[in-house]
């Protein structure tokens, strides 16, 4: 199994979720994060001074999926989250060794 961890723009969350649902994903976990990258952050003004703020609000979507769903999942996120502008984010794929469903104790792909 894999963990697909995608960093996306917050206003894209809704579309990403829908796209994942369409490809049959039944679960995901979302975290508010701040990202630093080529997008460069922004300047803020505070009482006559300027500050460079390097972090931009992002949302992280973690999806654990079976190996054979991987391509679909990556694809779904890629399409839904893309605006074509800098800062659209990344998708990371990490190996997952085991999954359990707490409610039932089920393991492996059945637990998803």
């Amino acid at each position, binding site marked *: 199994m894999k963990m697909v961890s995608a960093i996306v723009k917050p206003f894209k969350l*809704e579309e990403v979720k829908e796209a994942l649902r369409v490809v049959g994903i039944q679960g995901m976990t979302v975290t508010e994060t*701040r990202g630093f990258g080529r997008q460069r952050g922004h300047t803020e*003004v*505070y009482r006559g001074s300027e*500050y*460079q*703020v*390097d*972090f931009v*609000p992002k949302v992280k979507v973690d999806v654990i999926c079976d190996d054979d769903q991987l391509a679909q999942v990556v694809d779904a996120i890629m399409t839904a989250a893309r605006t074509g502008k800098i800062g659209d984010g990344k998708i990371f794929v990490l190996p997952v060794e085991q999954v359990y469903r707490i409610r039932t104790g089920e393991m492996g792909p059945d637990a998803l």
Partner: protein
Amino acid sequence: MPEMDTGDTAWILASAALVMFMTPGLALFYGGLVRSKNVLGTIMQSFFALGLVSVLFMMFGYTLAFGTDVGSIIGGLDFAFLRGVGAEPFANAPTIPHNVYMIFQMMFAVITPALITGAVAERMKFKGYVMFLALWSILVYSPVAHWVWGGGWLGFAEGGVAALDFAGGTVVHINAGIAALACIIYMGKRKGYPQEAIRPHNVPMVILGASILWFGWFGFNGGSALGANGLAGTAFVATHLAAAAAILGWLIPEWIQHKAPTTIGAATGAVAGLVAITPAAGFVEPWAAVLIGFAGGLVCYIFVSLKPKLGYDDSLDVVGVHFVGGIVGALLTGVFATLAVNEAGADGLLYGNPGQFMKQLIAVVATVVYSFVASMVILFVTDKLVGVRVSEDDEQMGLDLSQHSETAYTAEGGGTSIHS
């Protein structure tokens, strides 16, 4: 001739302070309802009105509304820059200093355009807003205030329509509500609306804002008696009861229809009731205030519920609450008003005077037509000159960063000074 009275003066001073406090209250009420990326932009629209409108009202707004009448249409320039507006009383309020009457009126002028901003929250360009605000305040607010209260054709001056508007049902709420509709039509929907749920980011802030509005409304309506007397008591009682009843008027259908009496519903209902009672507050019995408030809550609930079907994006329901609630109030004033409560008022339909209902209708229609057309023209001109809507990128980024270079809520770390 009545003399200056310190008690009356004390109450109108306190009322002016209360009405001023409503504008920040509105800022929080609206600010809590938007997404967190737009909270400062939303708050700023109200807060900035305190700055710009106050200065403009001092220069021209007050005199256009309350200066010597010119053709029943507009006030003359005698009070421009508040010349002669001092410690001596003025005919409209013979027991208090003129400057106290003026500052009380100034607070109304500030909050009225601020009300409009809720309708186009999350998408208006600040530069465009500044221009719209300045023009609307002078070209729409002052004339309408003059018509109703300043000796113009809708009020009680000789030959006037003699519509009843105790504290601003037409001047403030219908006026702002219909201008809000103009803005919505002109500016269009937010991206994502209505498919996505655009949810309020901070509901306690909404309740705090609504509570400040309620608190301040005692000055708004109670102070409109222009003295500390039984009439002020009447208006104060009516105001409170209408707000209270409107909570029930909103929550009952909501509880039945959606199985949930919501906190935002209670707050919105209260505001709807306060809007509805505004024109009536000094003219009706307490039981009538309860009915008007309940009707305000109920009708606004129904109207706001239908909004998704109507397909326009009134972000924070300014039309649904201020326009609809304002009309409910203006018309029911024509039903429930009674000379038994206020000899300076009139009897309504229920007391055998259907003519008053018609007068109310005339005032509503006149305000609606003028304000709608004038607002559209101002929007058009402003749009051509500086633009009224933010770009799509700016809308996504949020008003706070794109219009004001600020972030509302910040966790520690991650920034460095730029030594300029």
